[in-house]
């Protein structure tokens, strides 16, 4: 990507008959690519009071007045949040040399709920739904950042669809229970991500029961979470079991230790709806696996249950996680199916709409500010209106159209 951005800028510049003077800009980050991009970054310093940006970088303090405005996420928090952000969005952030998200109403609504819930009640469940590319994932990340700042432990599944797809994936029979199947690589990946997202929050947590891996290896009572994760990462065979242990301990200790646990699962419908035959996971006998037979999913389904307290579950349902024949509607009841809906019911549905006119304008203005839209017509009111019409104010569509302007 780093190579492609200067290429894009170069082609645009040559199209406009301008020579791109790379050497003029200071090499702050030491790479040639960032040298070009620092132009955009520098401009923003003079433009602090722009109509599409807010200086309120703390997501906890965002109110409805901030809707449609961009706020910047500090780099250290980005390392925690960037898992699960769509790659295209990440590329844009890299191109713009800053990580900005838009404050939107559903995120504020969700943060408001989480602020006011009674943690002693069974874990409430929220389901984000909306059209493709309307910003469900980004809404979830906005909420996650709020919770991170409030000291919540984040149990995040970036994209559950990954666990039911079987492209050259290693499937092993479970060591814990026959008839269930492990995904060692995915489990290890999740463990790494979990450790990274909850740095500094896991020291005090110790296991409350004994776990026997093999005849010789076992985890005594009082083993720290760090050790369990390390064990899962070194012995991949048990990584799925380690995930199960961590989730179980979190549920058990949340009340006793006064923890706050945020379970954020993107495209949760993959847990309940059968993926298509062609690419589905298969076991050693080439038999197609149901989502429930996979130990990772089995364990995460328990997190969605209401039999524990001091936590909240935020899910998103997405059409992409379903097979192509099952994408007719974007509502939770359609996407989750009978089984999924019954498992999640009751939940608070939160609709993530497409951009309003104000939000769309703000997005386009941000792109213009970042020099992402360089076409002169794109900067005029007529051009902006056309962009909104063609993209239908869908955030993903808008970004895609603007990518070649």
């Amino acid at each position, binding site marked *: 990507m780093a190579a492609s951005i200067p290429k894009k800028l170069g082609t645009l510049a040559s199209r406009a008959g301008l020579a791109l003077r790379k050497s003029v800009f200071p090499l702050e980050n030491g790479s040639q690519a960032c040298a070009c991009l620092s132009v955009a970054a520098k401009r923003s310093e003079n433009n602090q009071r722009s109509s599409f940006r807010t200086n309120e970088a703390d997501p906890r303090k965002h109110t409805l007045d901030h809707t449609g405005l961009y706020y910047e996420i500090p780099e250290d928090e980005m390392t925690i949040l960037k898992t699960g952000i769509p790659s295209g969005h990440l590329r844009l952030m890299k191109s713009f040399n800053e990580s900005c998200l838009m404050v939107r109403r559903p995120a504020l609504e969700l943060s408001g709920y989480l602020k006011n819930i009674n943690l002693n009640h069974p874990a409430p469940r929220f389901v984000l739904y909306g059209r493709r590319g309307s910003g469900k994932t980004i809404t979830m990340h906005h909420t996650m950042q709020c919770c991170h700042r409030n000291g919540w432990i984040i149990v995040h599944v970036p994209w559950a669809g990954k666990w039911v797809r079987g492209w050259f994936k290693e499937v092993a029979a479970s060591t814990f229970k026959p008839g269930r199947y492990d995904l060692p690589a995915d489990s290890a990946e999740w463990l790494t991500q979990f450790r990274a997202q909850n740095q500094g929050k896991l020291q005090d947590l110790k296991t409350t029961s004994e776990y026997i891996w093999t005849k010789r290896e076992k985890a005594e009572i009082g083993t720290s979470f760090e050790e369990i994760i390390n064990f899962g990462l070194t012995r991949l065979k048990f990584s799925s079991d380690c995930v199960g242990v961590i989730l179980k301990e979190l549920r058990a200790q949340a009340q006793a230790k006064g923890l706050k646990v945020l379970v954020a699962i993107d495209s949760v419908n993959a847990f309940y709806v059968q993926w298509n035959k062609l690419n589905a996971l298969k076991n050693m006998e080439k038999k197609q696996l149901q989502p429930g037979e996979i130990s990772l999913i089995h364990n995460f389904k328990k997190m969605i249950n209401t039999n524990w307290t001091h936590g909240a579950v935020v899910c998103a349902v997405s059409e992409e996680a379903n097979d192509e024949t099952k994408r007719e509607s974007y509502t939770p009841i359609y996407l989750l199916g009978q089984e999924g809906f019954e498992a999640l019911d009751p939940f608070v549905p939160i609709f993530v709409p497409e951009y309003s006119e104000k939000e769309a304008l703000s997005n386009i203005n941000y792109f213009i500010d970042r020099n992402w839209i360089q076409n002169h017509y794109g900067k005029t009111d007529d051009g902006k209106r056309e962009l909104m*019409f*063609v993209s*239908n104010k869908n955030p993903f569509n808008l970004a895609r159209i603007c990518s070649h302007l």
Partner: protein
Amino acid sequence: MAVLSPWTRRMFLKGNNMPSRPVFTFFFLKQNTDSCHKHACGFSTAPEGEDMLLNASKKTQNKPTAKAVTISRAMKAYMEQAKAYDDKMKAEVADYEIGKRHLANIMGEDPDSFTQADVDRAIEYLLPSSIYDKKARPIMKDPYEVFPKKKAAQFGLDGRPYHWMYFTILPNYYSMLYEITWKLEALKEAEDQLRAERRLEEMEGQVFNAASSEWLSLHALKTKLVENIKEKEYNHFVTMMERLAAHPLSGREQEFIMSWRISLQAEQLESAVQELEVEEGGRMCATAKGTRKSSNAIVKVYKPGSGNFIINGKDLTYFTQNMYRETLLLPFIVSGLLGKVDVEADVEMGGPTGQAGAIRLGLSRALTAFVDEDVKEKMRLSGLLTKDPRKKERKKPGQEGARRKFTWKKR
């Protein structure tokens, strides 16, 4: 017909002495090797031709002549043919009239006031045909429209042609060229005179204005002159005419030039837009239909509006690809009404391309109700108001599709 020649020659020799006659005879012979009536033709049709024939015989009778009136064998043959044709046409007309009355009775209408339009309607109702080519469908028309017209005789009873250019084979065509030349010569003379008298300023603005008209096509010229003109002769006609029209005083011959030109009328806008309806609250609504490929759309445009677009009860996500939304964008850009009107479209049949095109046509037609003439003309020039006539081409037997052939396999 070649049998005629000795007789003709004899007749010529009997008349006044003209040295060049044998040459004419040669032409006559050559011409008669083709079918007689084909070239010996005139402007008028058969029924009038009879009158002409009578007139011709009267003319010859009026002439004081010493010898007895002899009818040439060519004329005799022609008269026989003309009589046969007339008899046939009379029978056909009688058949047609009876048929029309029968048809009227079948349809339960008044036979006396049964017109050709009623006949067409009745035929379409009684003999429904789904043949693609309309010419191949059953018809019942006036015999004079169905059978080719017979030309009147171009020569008198004594075998002498009326037209002095008869032996050029294309008398009307060549006399027209003569006329052009004489008019051009006259104009040149007038120009010379003006130049000699140093009245050059009078010449200004007298050039023929060629805008909004064009020369008759080859086919139209053929019909006008009733002569079988070829491409070469047509090109000659155009060259001569342009020479005349380019003359600085050609405006004086405006009427003559325009008689050989066809004026181009501005393309009529299809009156698909209905009257503007005014709803409660002063909101105006225009409805129009659009078609493309096999899709049909009915589009309602409301003004003032906020840019809402509803297609079959959904918003623009009805079209999943940006391309189709861009199709719908163009009428708004040209008319400058983006974001100022609300649109409701109902579309059926076909795929997304056809549906988007159908909505675009309907939308453009409806938007014309809200814009002034200039913008309407701009929209027409952008091609927004023109229907795309292309359809799916039919599959051919022995082929895989419309054009594609089956994969060739040796054995």
